[in-house]
Every structure is written in C-alpha cells, then in structure tokens.
C-alpha cells in the first residue's frame, strides 16, 4: 500500500533496449526527508531507472507517481520542472563562467532589460549560504575543486528548480575524504528540509554512513528495499552479487602462490625519471612475474607516473630502460612495440572508442602494431575478439555490439582485451576497477595475478588501498608527486595510510 509519506512511487517499471532487458517490473519509492541508496552491480539497471525517472528514456511499462499524482516525464527539462533534479558524476555545468552565473543560468534577475549583476551575485551567495558554503561567486567555476562544483550543481538544482527530489549519481567518486564529509553535511541539511535524496554509489562505507534505506537491483530486477540499519554489510554484498565473497579469498591465495617465484628478471628500470610540473624524478623498477602496486592520494602523481612510462608524456630528466635498452622516443606506439600497455584511468575519454564495435575496439592496438597495410582479416578479427570475450567473460550478445552500449565493467574488460591481444610484457593498469562492481573487481584482481603468474609485469594503480594490498607483491607510495616509500607486501594498511598522509 502506498505510504502517505512517500514523495515518489515508481511501479512496475520495465524498459528494454535492443537485445537487453534493462529493467523488469521494478518498484521504487522515496519518502520525504530520506536518503535512499540505489545499489547494484554494473548493468544492474541503476542508471536506467534514473534515466526513466529523469525523462531521458521513456519506460516501456509502469507508472510514476509524484506527490500522489500520476506523472509522465517527457524530458530531462520536464523532470526539473516537476522538481526532480540530478547531480551527475561528471559535472554538467560550465566551468568557464562564474559560480553565480552557473547557479542562476537562464533565471538571471533583470534590471532595465539587462542582467542585474549585483543582485545575481547576492542571490547566488544566498543560495550557497543555505548549504553553508562561503566562496567568491564571481570567480569562474573552474577555479574550484570538483567538490565545490558539485555543491554548486546542488545549489542550482535547489534554487532554480526548487527540487523535491535530488538524485546524486556517484557524487563522491572523485572526492577526497574531507570533501565527501562536506558533501554529507549538505545532504543531511537537505534531508532536514524534507527533500528526498536518491544516492547512487559504489562505496558501501558511505551507504552505511549516510543512508536510511537501501534498494538493491540485480540484472534489471528488484532484489528488495531494506532499512540500512537492519541490513549487515555482508548480507548487502550477498544480495548485490547473488553469491558469496569467496572469490576475493581466491585472489589472496593466488597472490601467495606468486610470492614464491624468485627467478624474476628485471624488465623496466627508471632512474630519476621525471617531468617538470608532472612528477618529480623517481627511481623505480619492475620485474617479471610481479605486481607492483602504486598507492597515493588523488593528485599524488599516480597517473602522471603511468603516462610517463607509457610515453604519453616525454620525460625531461632521467632515463627509462626496458630489457636493458634505453628508451629514446616516447610515444604510445613506441611503447606498444616495446611490449608496454596502458589501460588509462579515464575509460570514456582515453579508453573506449564508443561508436566502434567490441571487435574493432579489441583489435585496435593489435592492428596499430601491425600498421596500415597488414590488415587483419575479418575472420581473424572475430577469432581474436571471441577469444578475449570468452577469456575475460565480457557479457554481450555478439562481438558486433557497439562498445558504448556495454556497462562500465565490460568496457574495462574490452580495453584490457585490447591490450592483452598485443601480448604485452608490461601492463600498466590505472584504476582498472574504478566504478565497477564488486564481482567484476574480484575478477579483474584475479586476472591481474594470473597474468603475473604467466610472467608478465604489472603496475597496478588504484585509489582503493585494500585492492592494492590484496594484489601487489610490492607497493610504491606516492605523495605530492614524489615517491614517498616502497614496501613489501607484508606491510599493513595503516603504515601505508600514514605514508600517504605524510605522517611518519
């Protein structure tokens, strides 16, 4: 029965895309003044549910009730008019205009036919004050951190759209701990004002920190809605995956096996490798059968280090030696020929080529190695892609699907496949498990150790310390664009955190 407290009722939502049933008869409800987590693996249907709610995609079946009234959301704009606002993971504001303009874009106060800037700034200031934020609103938005930008986005949705429902889609994925706490303060405040908040995240800690109820989706179906306080974490994970966590244990076992290999050969050696403004000179080596983890906070130089070794950037000091040969020309193609591969951090911008098929994405690097005139036959292309689709368990009806239609975890696997197809010796994985679900994470970690077992060298970069500890044989800690320390795998997490934070 409908709860009178409910601000939103979605019933029997069904949505299918070509070849995929994305949502099947899903119910979802939201109360006033509630923070409601929407949880599920990649491809579980979270984004689709949000898209239906915000009018990006019309549902095939089902009804949406807002404040007891049946509504049909025609477009994202319409959803805003109805009081449903969304703050996305990637901020969709304009970074080159001022904070105040961003907040009131399209709703600027006018005076004598032109914009009343004074009033605009005052109004924007007030809007931010409500969230306890005090910044110079005349500065361009781009001057502020992502966290502040997100708050500005929230302020805009409250001010302009007078939101009743606020959807936060992975708002914390690029925030550090302080920023996250600040965001949570804002969320609590909004909650107090009776706004219903839908919170989507992969960080289970945060789910327990801030939410009241949890709705779990799996494979497009509703698993259930639970009170956060009465659902232990292990059970939650079990509900998300539909299986237990033994796979993660297997990861640890596989790592132990790798430890015993002693006949390692040095493969990569960096001496004083650095680039001004990117990363300070760093000494570093990597051998066969080895996983070296890179730990460090956001901005500590993790990605910069990866880009330097892979040849995206050209170092201005130091030397890089691979198999005893000094590298003189730095470019991805050069690295490809030297057997180095990089799965970049930003999957969407630097990894996938969305409008190409899975097959074409997988053969891309291999083909780059073969050059312009040795084109793989269609048959060979299918063989290669089929092989890696099976090996990595990429979920797709056919290799001819466009990559942009895959879920995040599967896209990551496609990029991994692209590089594995070139049979690299050194694999640099920059945040390979970012934004993908627990099950796929375990799979990728296991795969990393298997590859090391086969003799490959792997540089494993991750912002999740647990993951680094679980998979790495050695751990390099970066701080302030410098190498802070190097540990063997038996180090405990606390020591690393202290090193990352600069407490000795």
């Amino acid at each position, binding site marked *: 029965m409908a709860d009178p407290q409910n601000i939103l009722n979605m019933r029997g939502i069904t949505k299918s895309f070509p070849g995929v049933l994305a949502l099947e008869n899903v119910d979802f409800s939201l109360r006033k003044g509630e923070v409601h987590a929407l949880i599920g693996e990649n491809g579980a249907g979270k984004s689709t549910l949000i898209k239906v709610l915000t009018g990006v995609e019309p549902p095939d079946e089902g009804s949406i009730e807002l404040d007891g009234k049946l509504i049909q959301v025609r477009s994202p704009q319409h959803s805003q008019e109805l009081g449903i606002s969304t703050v996305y993971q990637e901020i969709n504001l304009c970074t080159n205009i001022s904070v105040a303009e961003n907040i009131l874009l399209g709703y600027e106060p006018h005076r004598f036919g032109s914009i009343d800037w004074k009033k605009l700034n005052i109004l924007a200031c007030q809007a931010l004050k409500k969230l306890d934020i005090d910044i110079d609103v005349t500065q361009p938005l781009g001057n502020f951190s992502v966290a502040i930008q997100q708050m500005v986005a929230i302020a805009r949705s409250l001010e302009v759209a007078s939101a009743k429902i606020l959807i936060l889609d992975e708002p914390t994925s690029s925030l550090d701990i302080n920023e996250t706490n600040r965001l949570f303060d804002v969320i609590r405040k909004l909650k107090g004002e009776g706004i219903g908040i839908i919170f989507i995240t992969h960080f289970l800690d945060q789910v327990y920190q801030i939410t009241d109820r949890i709705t779990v989706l799996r494979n497009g179906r509703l698993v259930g809605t639970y009170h956060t306080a009465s659902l232990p974490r292990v059970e939650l994970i079990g509900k998300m995956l539909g299986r237990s966590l033994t796979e993660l244990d297997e990861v640890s076992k596989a790592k132990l096996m790798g430890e015993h290999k002693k006949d390692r050969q040095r493969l990569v050696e960096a001496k004083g490798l650095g680039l001004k403004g990117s990363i300070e000179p760093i000494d570093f080596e990597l051998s066969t059968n080895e996983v070296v983890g890179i730990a460090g906070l956001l901005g500590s130089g993790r990605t910069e280090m990866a880009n330097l070794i892979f040849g*995206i950037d050209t170092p201005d000091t130091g030397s890089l030696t691979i198999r005893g040969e000094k590298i003189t020309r730095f470019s*991805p*193609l050069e*690295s*490809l020929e030297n057997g180095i591969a*990089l799965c*970049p951090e930003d999957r969407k*911008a*630097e*990894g*996938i*080529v*969305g*409008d*190409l098929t899975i097959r*074409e994405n997988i053969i*891309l*690097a291999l*083909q*780059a*190695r*073969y*050059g*312009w*005139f*040795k*084109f*793989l036959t269609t048959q060979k292309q299918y063989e290669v892609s089929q092989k890696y689709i099976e090996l990595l368990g990429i979920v797709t*009806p*056919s290799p*001819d699907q466009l990559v942009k239609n895959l879920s995040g975890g599967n896209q990551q696997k496609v990029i991994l496949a*692209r590089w594995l197809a070139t049979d690299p010796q050194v694999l640099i994985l920059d945040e390979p498990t970012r934004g993908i679900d627990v099950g796929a994470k375990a799979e990728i970690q296991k795969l990393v150790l298997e590859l090391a077992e086969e003799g490959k060298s792997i540089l494993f970069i991750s912002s999740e310390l647990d993951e680094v500890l679980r998979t790495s044989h050695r751990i390099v800690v970066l701080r302030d664009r410098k190498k802070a320390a190097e540990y063997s795998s038996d180090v405990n997490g606390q020591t690393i955190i202290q090193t990352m934070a600069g407490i000795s």
Partner: protein
Amino acid sequence: MKNNIPLLKRVRENRLFWPLVALALIFIFDAIFAPGFFKIGIVEGHLFGNLIDVFNNAAPLMLVSLGMTLVIATGGVDLSVGAVIAISAAMGTVLINPALGNELITNDILAANTTNTPLWLVVMADLGAGVLCGFWNGLLVSRGKISPMVATLILMVAGRGIAQLITNGQIMTVYYTPYWWFGNGFIWGLPVSIYIVVVVFLLAWVLVRKTSIGLFIESVGINPKSTYYSGISEKNIKLFAYTFCGFCGAIAGLILSSYIHGCDANNIGLNYELDAIFAVVIGGTLMSGGRFSLLASVVGALIIWTFTITMYTFGVPANALLAGRAVLVLVVILLYSDYTRRILNKIVEQKGLRHGPTN
C-alpha cells in the same frame, strides 16, 4: 545473431538506405512528370540522354566527395577543394598552352593542335599540385594543430590567387584535343569520366577497407584520444585523409578543365567544397566524424546532380537553381533528423506488425 534481426530492419539500418530512398524519390518524380528524362539514345555511337548527363556532370563532385568523406570521417572538413580544383586545372592548362595565355590565338595554334609538355607530364603535374595542396592542409591540421576549418580556409582563400598566378591572370583555353578526352571522351559508349570515377572509387575503397586505414580513420573521428592511447598515429591518419582529398580534387580539376577546354581560375570548381560536404552529409557520415561510407557519399553526389539536371529539364532558370537546391538541403536535413527518423521507423514498424512477422 545477425539473422535474428528482421530483414526489413536490416535494410533500413543500412547506410545506403536513406540516400537511395532520396534518389528513388527524385527518379519517381521524373518518371511521372518528365518521362523523357530516362530516354537514352545513341548519337554517333555514344550513349546520350539525361541520365548520362547526370553521371558525366556529377563525376567531379563524386570524386571530391570521396576525399571529403575521409576528411569528414576524421572529424575535420576541407573547405579548400574548390581552390584545389582551380590550382590543378590552372597547372594542367598552363603546361599545355604554348603562349602562357599572353598572345592572341592564331589559326596556326588551332591547327597545330600541339602541347608544350607531354600529356602524361601534364596529368602528373596536375595530380602533383593537388596532392601537394592536400598534404599542406594535412600538415596544418595534424602537425600545426590548427582547427580544420581555419586551416583549410587559408588555402580556400589563397588557392584561387595561386591559380591566377599560375595562369598569369588569364582565362586559359586549351586547343590541344587529346586533353579534351578526359571530360568529353567516350569508351564503349559511356563517358570517360564515369570510368575515372569507378577507378578512383575502387582505389579509395581498397585503400581504406582492405587496409586498416578505414578503421583508424573511424576511430580517430570517434575518439582521437583513445585512438592515440591505443598506439595509432592519429596525425598520420589525418595527413593521409587530407592528402587523399587533395588528390581527388586534382582529378576533379583535370576533368572539369578538360570538359570546358580551359580554365577560369576564378570560377572553375566554385562552391564544390560545399556541394561535397552536402553529398557526404546525405551519405550519412556525421560532421563530427566516425563511421563513413564511400558509396553512400557517391550516391549523395548523384542526388545533387540528378536534382540539378531535373531542374534544368523543367526549365528552371539557372539563377533560380540555388533556391531549388536550398529546398533540397532543407528536405534532406529534415529527413535525416533523429526526430523524423524515429517517426518514420515507428510507421514502418507498425505496418510490419500488422502484416505479421517479417521473417
């Protein structure tokens, strides 16, 4: 997997579907209102008629569209093809004419039917000039990192000036009959230009589809950064596309100057860049780059010229023709908008359902 998709849908999603529908519509219109349009006679052993005219006239545009397709697929655009046509035409005609355009034409010159330079060298110089122009554009875009529209604008503006320098500011006329062959000759009853289009089309097709260049071009057009990270030199891919576009422009210049027996640097190939862009758009290649189809672009060029010749057939005066073309552009753009397509798809699908499953 593939066979699960209904045949009707597969046909509809083919890149050639909409261009062919558009072409068919124009043909149907002609069939109803100008039955003479399809009449093909034989005059002096050559095929003769509106359809042959369409092909013969469309040949230069088809060629330019081939090059333009590749450039647009990389996410760029080449505004200079019209100017490239002028440069290559000027190059060819100057090398032939003994007088460099300065002297009055006497009966002697007409009767002599001579050339200053051997014909093969004329053709090579012609093509060389175009390739060089394309290479220059490619360098500016790929190495100079100048946005394609600005980079090719330079040659678009400067190109006709260069062509005038080459011809010494004169309108060149060619009296050397072998040069006329490219634009006016016939082989087995069909215009030579059609054979040239077929050869260049096959060359382009083999070059992009039988090597990895086509895949790389599409990849660069969709996501240049990912492509670079995959070890592909997106610079060289762009350089290739622009150079090839210059090459296509040069051949078009050869045919056009041969067709009119001369070269007016100010007017030859005027607005070809815009027509070519339009042909590519009709062919379904996005202006933002990515997936492309050479054949669809050729059909696009054919649509433009079928439309033009149709207008001529109906006696529309030449100065009103541009307005007519504007209508064509409007109709095509509307037809191609997502919104219209969704509606059309819905209508077709509903009809399909009423007739039961299609396979």
